[in-house]
């Protein structure tokens, strides 16, 4: 969830109420946001620099860090947060935002060229007229763009915002896509003219911007916005031009959002203009811009039109279980900002929760229940093995390729294991195909534990499986291990017999299929001559043996070990 940092005093000023911290926390909780941390600018800086924290003095501005839900883009800055809380606590009505009524001729125009569809096909624009910034609101305006870029804009891949001082520009504007060599301009915070391809090279060493370069880097054309004098407004989604940079003195702001997702672009534009229209000469009024496509079609943005949805009251009351009088105003909050929102606004939800806290609801009578056989059997076997004196361990499903194959003297034949495509470290390269590496790692990490060590695990491995829709299936295995001054091979052998005994399988001789018998095996992870397969009803269900000394060495185990592994799912196969 995103976190927004706001100055406490400025927030309380905007709310018109000075809360105690406890009161404010309660307000947050009931509204569905959370006061995450109370800190100061100084503390944040010293934390970043890993310095000793100084005691805050009275002059230090207190900063509230507030966690907001991932879908509430409108709460990502002080202005939006304050307004939402004022509405929630009934201090203010929901504002009606309007689009200024101006004629099509006097409207600013954005012409979209066909080539933009190759790289970033959409653009939406709007103008904030007669805005007055102070330092705090100016910073908030910049911060909001950052927050939106991080969240809904998915690090500028879906949408990128550009804001410009309109008085330095002359419409009409064009949104084009040109070969990088043909684009030349002075970017923001630079004094020198750059060619777009050189600029990309230049930004490779820029910590903030280099992570956005990949979005257009490999395209033959770069998106770019010009005014009528071929002044570059921006090279989205990388950087704006220096020429039209906004300042504290800017009066008229031109906002453009270029995008690969038109819906998200509209949400972002609406969030920007509705949040900051409060600073405009005509509060809550936004000047529209006409966007004209290469195919002649035209749209006017921002689209602040309200839309109606027919919702039966019974749907709402039925969902919450309490009769409710509907206050229309509150239901319509933010509907034009987010497609995700349904009708349960936080206001209503909180009221219902208060009502319902004390209500005990009786459950319907029990349906006929049956336990899940595999899990039930696993639990029964787990108890039996513990009763035989073994200690249960629980190891990770993920491991490295080396642990799963090479360190067990096995070769990866590429036809058994599920391979992770994007592991963060080598510890998570592969889904285990055996419980053996986890068990051996456990012994390797418990060198100081008194011997003998007797451990077991019942858990799932995953094998590639053509018969499954996703191409892989789980298998429930039992593994047990003995480690001591001697190998304990006989002890593991007796555990095999005990396990088969509790499963009601008689000991028979090969090739009798009515029970189980043991047959010499030849697997690389075990010592030759001291390893055997367990054959049950004619199927190989497991193996046990003395772990090969090379394998022990690979896992840094100085003492001999015997190991058993068997698939308990075979106990469900009848015949």
């Amino acid at each position, binding site marked *: 969830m995103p976190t927004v940092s706001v100055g406490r005093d400025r927030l309380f000023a905007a709310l018109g109420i000075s809360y105690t911290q406890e009161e404010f926390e309660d307000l947050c909780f009931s509204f569905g946001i959370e006061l995450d941390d109370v800190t100061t600018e100084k503390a944040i800086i010293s934390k970043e620099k890993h310095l000793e924290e100084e005691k805050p003095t009275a002059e230090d501005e207190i900063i509230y860090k507030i966690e907001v839900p991932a879908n509430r883009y409108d709460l990502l800055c002080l202005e939006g947060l304050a307004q939402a809380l004022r509405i929630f606590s009934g201090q203010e009505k929901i504002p009606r935002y309007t689009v200024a009524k101006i004629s099509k001729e006097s409207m600013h125009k954005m012409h979209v060229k066909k080539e933009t569809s190759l790289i970033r096909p959409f653009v939406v624009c709007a103008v904030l007229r007669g805005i007055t910034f102070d330092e705090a609101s100016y910073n908030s305006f910049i911060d909001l763009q950052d927050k939106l870029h991080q969240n809904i804009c998915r690090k500028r891949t879906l949408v990128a915002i550009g804001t410009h001082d309109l008085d330095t520009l002359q419409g009409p504007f064009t949104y084009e896509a040109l070969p990088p060599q043909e684009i030349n301009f002075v970017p923001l915070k630079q004094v020198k003219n750059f060619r777009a391809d050189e600029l990309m090279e230049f930004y490779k060493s820029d910590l903030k911007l280099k992570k956005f370069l990949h979005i257009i880097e490999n395209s033959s054309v770069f998106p770019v916005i010009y005014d009528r004098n071929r002044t570059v407004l921006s090279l989205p989604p990388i950087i704006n031009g220096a020429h039209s940079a906004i300042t504290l003195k800017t009066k008229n702001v031109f906002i453009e959002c270029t995008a690969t997702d038109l819906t998200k672009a509209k949400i972002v534009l609406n969030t920007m203009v509705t949040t900051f229209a409060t600073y405009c000469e005509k509060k809550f009024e936004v000047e529209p811009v006409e966007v004209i496509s290469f195919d002649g079609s035209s749209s006017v943005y921002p689209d602040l039109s309200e839309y109606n949805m027919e919702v039966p009251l019974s749907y709402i009351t039925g969902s919450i279980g309490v009769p409710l009088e509907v206050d229309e105003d509150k239901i319509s909050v933010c509907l034009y900002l987010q497609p995700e929102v349904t009708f349960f606004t936080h206001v209503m*939800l909180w009221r219902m929760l208060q009502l319902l806290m004390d209500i005990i609801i009786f459950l319907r009578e029990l349906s006929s229940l049956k336990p*899940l056989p595999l899990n039930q059997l696993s639990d029964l076997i787990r108890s039996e093995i513990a009763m035989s004196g073994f200690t249960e361990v629980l190891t990770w499903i993920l491991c490295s390729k080396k642990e799963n194959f090479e360190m067990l003297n096995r070769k990866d034949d590429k036809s058994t294991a599920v*391979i992770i495509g994007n592991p963060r470290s080598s510890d998570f390269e592969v889904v285990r195909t055996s419980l053996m590496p986890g068990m051996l790692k456990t012994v390797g990490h418990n060198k100081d534990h008194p011997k003998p060590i007797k451990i077991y695990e019942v858990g799932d491995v995953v094998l590639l499986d053509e018969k499954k829709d996703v191409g892989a299936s789980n298998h429930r295995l039992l593994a047990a291990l003995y480690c001591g001054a001697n190998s304990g091979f006989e002890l593991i052998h007796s555990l095999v017999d005990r396990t088969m005994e509790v499963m009601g399988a008689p000991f028979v001789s090969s090739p009798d299929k009515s029970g189980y018998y043991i047959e010499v095996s030849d697997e690389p992870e075990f010592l030759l001559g001291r390893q055997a397969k367990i054959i049950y009803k004619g199927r190989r269900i497991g193996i046990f043996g003395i772990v090969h000394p090379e394998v022990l060495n690979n896992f840094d185990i100085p003492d001999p070990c015997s190991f058993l592994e068997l698939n308990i799912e075979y106990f469900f196969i009848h015949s």
Partner: protein
Amino acid sequence: MAEDAILGYLAAAEEIPDSGQFASQHGLQHSEVVNVIKSLHGFRYIDAQDIKRESWVLTDEGKKYAAEGSPEVQLFLAVPQEGSISKDELQKKLQPSVFKIGCSQAGKNKWVDMGKQVSRKVQHVEDKVKDLLIRVQNGEEIGKDDVHSLKARKLIVAQTWKGYSVRKGPNYAPKRKKVATDLTRENLQRGDWKELEFKEYNFNAKGPPSESGHLHPLLKVKQQFKNIFVQMGFEEMPTNNFVESSFWNFDALFQPQQHPARDSHDTFFLEAPSTTRELPEDYVELVKRVHESGGYGSRGYMYDWKREEANKNLLRTHTTAVSTRMLYALAKQPFAPKRYFSIDRVFRNESVDRTHLAEFHQIEGLVCDRGLNLGDLIGVLDDFFSRLGMSKLRFKPAYNPYTEPSMEIFSYHEGLKKWVEIGNSGMFRPEMLLPMGFPEDVRVIAWGLSLERPTMILYGIDNIRDLFGHKVDLSLIKRNPICRIGLN
């Protein structure tokens, strides 16, 4: 025998000053005497004080010379009384070591003339070294200078002798009473158990470690959670499928394809098997439509839904992927209400730290029925958590992509004296349920939490790696008490 001798001697005498002397006087082995002293001391029949003495013993080389004579004398005797012998000839007559040491010592003593030819300088010598060695061997005292020279030639070494001086102890008796440490079959057969006096048992020490098996702490807690679900009438879902497609993990839950959870930073995508082989096509079409343009009263997310994204395989990020499959199957049949639960492994491509692992266990419960409402959800949560001993709950309105309304669940922790988030809950969105084919009035309420977090709070563990994985200390598993969640 030694015991009788010691106890008997002390009946008359005040003290045995030296156990070594005592042993030789009474013709006993000193080692036997020592063992008896230790045992009698243990029962406090006697008090024993350590005594130590330094003595000299012969080295192997010293023993050899004590028997065969010193090398210098051997060499001297090999030189003829008259005339001389060539050095080579002399060397052949003696062992190499004897020759080498003999030459240097006999030369130093000026007994022989050492040249190409060797001849005697004196006619008679005494083997003083041999005599000294024999005296040391017999335990006789020798002079300080002699000790030095023998030590320098590494013929003798010092040895510490340990013994005891013994006096009567507080429990002294001329004859030891038989004390038993245990009751044996023989005692019963002989019937002498009536006379048995038991050695005092040390109840200040713990008994020897028991040789039992042990269940894993996390799985003990899991079992209790399972029991609670079963008591509440919930049925377990089969969750033994770690590999899942993005479709069942995300798309079917109305989680948009640009959602951050679908980033490679959060989810393990697979190289093999990289994509799913099949999806239910009719249903896929409905899911695509609800994402793109909504329906069922929803406006959808209004974006181009891509099949390739849905096909991508992953390690499930939540067990809700299984719930989705279960609900889809349920919707295909004539409607019947269901209560389901699962507790199993889920995977997140997160960096590992004290509280996060790349895999953990998710506990999930859901109820599917006609006309369920938020009141039912709160009722079920109240029941579930009060069985865990958490009866003070409050709920925070929250946002989840696939539930609306959603509530985070907080519980007041008496130990920490604060509200702690313990889980998440909500009602599945109609955009998820209706494309499955459920009747319109069917609602699903669900909640989830991790198994690790309550277990860590329960057992006071603050690093998740101490609880789960191969680095866990086996002693911790063995020491861990039973899980009494739900027994209060």
